[in-house]
C-alpha cells in the first residue's frame, strides 16, 4: 500500500515538473522559432562552408552589401562604391556611426582586417576564392576603403555581398577559439549570438543599438531538426514559426493548411546531367544533342517535382544578371533516335550515370526517369548511386582518371550574376581538380567571352557578351540543363516580413502578431 502511495506521489511530482517547463518563456517577448536541417559548422567566417551557415551568418554579421529578393544589389555596411576607369581600383565609402555589439567602432580598419583575415593562407579559408582578385585593401580614411585588383573584376561587390564574408569585430577574434565564446563571432547586425547548444539550437537576441533601429522580434531561435517530416510537423503544431528546406512531397499538405503560408522561390540553382565531354561517346556533339532530345523535362518536373521549379531555358537561371532565353530544349524522341543512328552509336553500349544521394531533391527518382527515357531511344544507362562525399571524390578528378560518363548535380549562384554561374563550370581553365568544369567542356570563344564579362563593368556590354556566350553553350550541349530549382519555404500566418533569397531566409524585418 505504502509503495503505491509513494509511486503515486512521484508521478504527480514529475507531472508538475514537466508542466512547469511550459511557463518558462517570457510573455511579452516576441520570439521566432526557425527550424533548420543542419547545424552550421561554425559562424566564424574563416570556417563557413555551407548554405545553412550562410543563413545564420547573415543574422549575426553584416556584409558590405546585400542581395534582395529581386536579385538587386543594395548597400549595407558600404554606402557607395565606384570602380576606376580601368576597373583596377574600387573606392568604397562605408556607413558611419556603426558599432559592433562589443562597442568597437566599425570602420575602414575593420574592413581591411576582415578581408585580409579571409585571404590569409594560414587560415585556409574556403571562401577566399571569392575575393582572390583583390591584391590589396587600402585604408584611405576612417570610412573609405580602396580595393586594389589584380585584374578588373566587375562583380566584385556582389561577391562581397555573399554571407560568407560577414564583417566581425577585430578585437573579438582572440576569443573565437575558446570556451563560451568559441565560434560566436561579434558583428554589427540587428541580432547577436547569445547561446549555442550544439546539436540543439542557436539563440540570437536583438541588438538594441543596431544602426538601423532595433528589430521587431526580440529573440530568434534556430532549432536543428534534421528530419524533414519532423520540420513539417513542427510547423503544423506551431512549435516552429518558419521552416526551411521543405521537401516537395510535403508541399500540397502544407498548402492546404490555413495556418501556414507556403512560398516557392528560385534559388538560382540549375540542376543538370553532366556529360563527360572529354571522351566517347560524349565527345561527339550529335550524341549529346540526341540525348537532349530524348529527355522530357516537362514530364519529370510535373510528375516527380510536383511542378515546383521551371524547365531550364538557359545554362543560368532567369533571375541571374546576364540571363537570356536560349531554350528550353525540345522533347523529340524520334529525332533523338535519328541523330543517334547518324553517329554510329553502338546498340549495346552502356553509359554510367552517377547518382549522388542526400544532396538534391528527388535525385534517385529523376535519374530513374532519365534512365527509362533513354532506354526508349535504345540507350542503356546504368545507375550508380553513391553518398555525396564519394560522389564528389569520383567526379572531381582530372579527365584521365574519370570513371563517370554522366552525373546528376546542381550549380547554384550566390551572387545572381552570370559570371558566378558560368566561369567556374564552363571555362576550360576550371577542369577538375582546379574547379567545377566537371564535364571537361572547352570552347575557346566561350572562354574569351567569360573572361571579357569579368573585366568589363558596363552592364549593357556585359549583357551582350553573356548573350553570345549562352547561345554558344546551349548549342554545344555540354550537359543536359534540366531545371531551375525552386525551394519551398513555409511560415505560420502570424509571421510577416520573411524574405527568401537564394538558399537563405532573412528575418531582419520580420514581425509576429
Amino acid at each position: 500500500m505504502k509503495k503505491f502511495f509513494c509511486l503515486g506521489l512521484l508521478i504527480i511530482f514529475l507531472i508538475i515538473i514537466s508542466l512547469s517547463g511550459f511557463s518558462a518563456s517570457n510573455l511579452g517577448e516576441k520570439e521566432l522559432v526557425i527550424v533548420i536541417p543542419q547545424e552550421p559548422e561554425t559562424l566564424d567566417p574563416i570556417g563557413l562552408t555551407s548554405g545553412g551557415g550562410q543563413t545564420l551568418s547573415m543574422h549575426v554579421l553584416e556584409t558590405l552589401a546585400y542581395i534582395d529578393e529581386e536579385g538587386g544589389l543594395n548597400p549595407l555596411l558600404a554606402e557607395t562604391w565606384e570602380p576606376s576607369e580601368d576597373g583596377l581600383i574600387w573606392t568604397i565609402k562605408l556607413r558611419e556611426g556603426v558599432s559592433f555589439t562589443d562597442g568597437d567602432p566599425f570602420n575602414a580598419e575593420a574592413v581591411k582586417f576582415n578581408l585580409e583575415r579571409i585571404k590569409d593562407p594560414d587560415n585556409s579559408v574556403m571562401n577566399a576564392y571569392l575575393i582572390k582578385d583583390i591584391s590589396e585593401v587600402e585604408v584611405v580614411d576612417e570610412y573609405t576603403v580602396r580595393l586594389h585588383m589584380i585584374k578588373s573584376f566587375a562583380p566584385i561587390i556582389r561577391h562581397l555581398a555573399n554571407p560568407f564574408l560577414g564583417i566581425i569585430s577585430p578585437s573579438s577574434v582572440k576569443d573565437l577559439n575558446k570556451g563560451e565564446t568559441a565560434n560566436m563571432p561579434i558583428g554589427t547586425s540587428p541580432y547577436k549570438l547569445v547561446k549555442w547548444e550544439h546539436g540543439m539550437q542557436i539563440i540570437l537576441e536583438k541588438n538594441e543599438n543596431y544602426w538601423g533601429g532595433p528589430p521587431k522580434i526580440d529573440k530568434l531561435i534556430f532549432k536543428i531538426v534534421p528530419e524533414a517530416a519532423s520540420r513539417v510537423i513542427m510547423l503544423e503544431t506551431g512549435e516552429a514559426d518558419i521552416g526551411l528546406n521543405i521537401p516537395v512531397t510535403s508541399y500540397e499538405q502544407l498548402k492546404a493548411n490555413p495556418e501556414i503560408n507556403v512560398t516557392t522561390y528560385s534559388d538560382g540553382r540549375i540542376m543538370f546531367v553532366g556529360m563527360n565531354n572529354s571522351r566517347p561517346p560524349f565527345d561527339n556533339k550529335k550524341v549529346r544533342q540526341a540525348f537532349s532530345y530524348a529527355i522530357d523535362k516537362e514530364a519529370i518536373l510535373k510528375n516527380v517535382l510536383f511542378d515546383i521549379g521551371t524547365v531550364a531555358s538557359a545554362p543560368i537561371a532567369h533571375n541571374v544578371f546576364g540571363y537570356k532565353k536560349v531554350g528550353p530544349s525540345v522533347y523529340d524522341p524520334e529525332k533523338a533516335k535519328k541523330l543517334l543512328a547518324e553517329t554510329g552509336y553502338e546498340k549495346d553500349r552502356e553509359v554510367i550515370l552517377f547518382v549522388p544521394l542526400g544532396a538534391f531533391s528527388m535525385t534517385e527518382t529523376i535519374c530513374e526517369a532519365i534512365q527509362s527515357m533513354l532506354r526508349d531511344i535504345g540507350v542503356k544507362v546504368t545507375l550508380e548511386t553513391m553518398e555525396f562525399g564519394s560522389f564528389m571524390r569520383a567526379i572531381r578528378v582530372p579527365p584521365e582518371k574519370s570513371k563517370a560518363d554522366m552525373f546528376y548535380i546542381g550549380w547554384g549562384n550566390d551572387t545572381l550574376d552570370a559570371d558566378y554561374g558560368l566561369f567556374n563550370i564552363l571555362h576550360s581553365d576550371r577542369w577538375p581538380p582546379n574547379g567545377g568544369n566537371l564535364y571537361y567542356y572547352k570552347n575557346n570563344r566561350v572562354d574569351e567571352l567569360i573572361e571579357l564579362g569579368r573585366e568589363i563593368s558596363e552592364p549593357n556590354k556585359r549583357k551582350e557578351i553573356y548573350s553570345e556566350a549562352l547561345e554558344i553553350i546551349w548549342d554545344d550541349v555540354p550537359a543536359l540543363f534540366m531545371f531551375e530549382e525552386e525551394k519551398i519555404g513555409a511560415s505560420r500566418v502570424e509571421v510577416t516580413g520573411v524574405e527568401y533569397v537564394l538558399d537563405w531566409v532573412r528575418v531582419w524585418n520580420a514581425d509576429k502578431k
Partner: protein
Amino acid sequence: MSTYIYKRLLLSIPVLLIVTVIVFSIIRFIPGDPAEIMAGLDAGPEYIEQVRERLGLNQPIHLQYFAFLRNLFQGDLGESINYRIPVNELLFSTFTNTIELSTISLLVAAIIGIGVGIVSARYRYSIFDNLSMLAALAGIAIPVFWLGLMFQLLFSVNLGWLPSSGKGKLLQLVMPVMSLAVGSIALLARITRSSMLDVLHQDYITTARAKGLPERVVIFKHALRNALIPVITILGFQLGAMLGGTVIVEIVFAWPGMGRLLVNAILQRDYPVIQGAVLVFASCFILINLVVDLIYACFDPRIRYTSKKEVS
C-alpha cells in the same frame, strides 16, 4: 571476484586499441577526405591542400596514428574538423543525451516487457497471452522510423498532447522513449514468456506449489530468478543495440545524441569525431558485457568467477 573484474578490464585495453586501429584505417580508406568535403565546387586545389596541411592529413598514416595515440593517452581526442571545437566537448553532451534516452527506454522496456512476459506465461493461452504475443510480433516487425513519425502525427499534430521533437522538457522524452522501447518490449515479452514457461514446468516449482506457497511467492521468488538469466543476456544486447540504434530516433525527434553526431561525422569525414565516438561506443559495449556477466553471478549461484585457489 575482484581479480576477475580486473582481468576483464585489463583485457579490454588491447581490444580498444584494435578498435582504434580498425576505425582509423577504414575511415581513411573510404573515398573522400574532410578537405574535399568542405571544399565547394569552386574552391581550388590550393584550398584543399591548405586544409590537408593544417589537419596533418598528408603525413604517412602510421605517424598520424601515433599522434592520435599520444593525444589519446593524455585524454585529448583532438578537435572536430567541422565544428572546430574539442571532440571531448561534443562527445560529452551528446553521449549523455544518448545514454539518457537508451537507459530510460531500456528501463521502460524491461518493466513492461518482462511484466507482460510473466503474465503471459502464467496465464498461457488466455486472451491476454494471445493478444500480447500478437502485439509483440507487430512490435518486432514495425520499423522505428515509421513508428516515430506516426507517433508525432498522432500525439503532436492531431491530439496536440505532446511536443513533437527536441529535448529539454520531460514531455519531450515520451515519444522518443516509446518509439525506441517498442521493439525491445516485444522481444523481452516473448523471451520472458518462453523462459518462464520452461521454468514453470520444472519440478521445484511443483514442489513449491505443493508446499502451499502463495502463487505470488512461487513466481517472484522461485521462478523469476531462474527465468531471468537468458533475459538478462538479451537486456545486455538490447542496451548495446539501443546505444547504436538511437540514431533513427535521434534524427526523427531532433534528439541531440551521439548516434546522430556519428552519422553526420561520417558523412562529413570528420575523422576525430568518428574516432572518438566509435571509441566511446566500443568502451560502452565492453562495459555492458562485463556488467551482464557479473549480474549472472548474482542470479545464479552456480556461476562464480573465482579461481580454484580463491575457494577456501
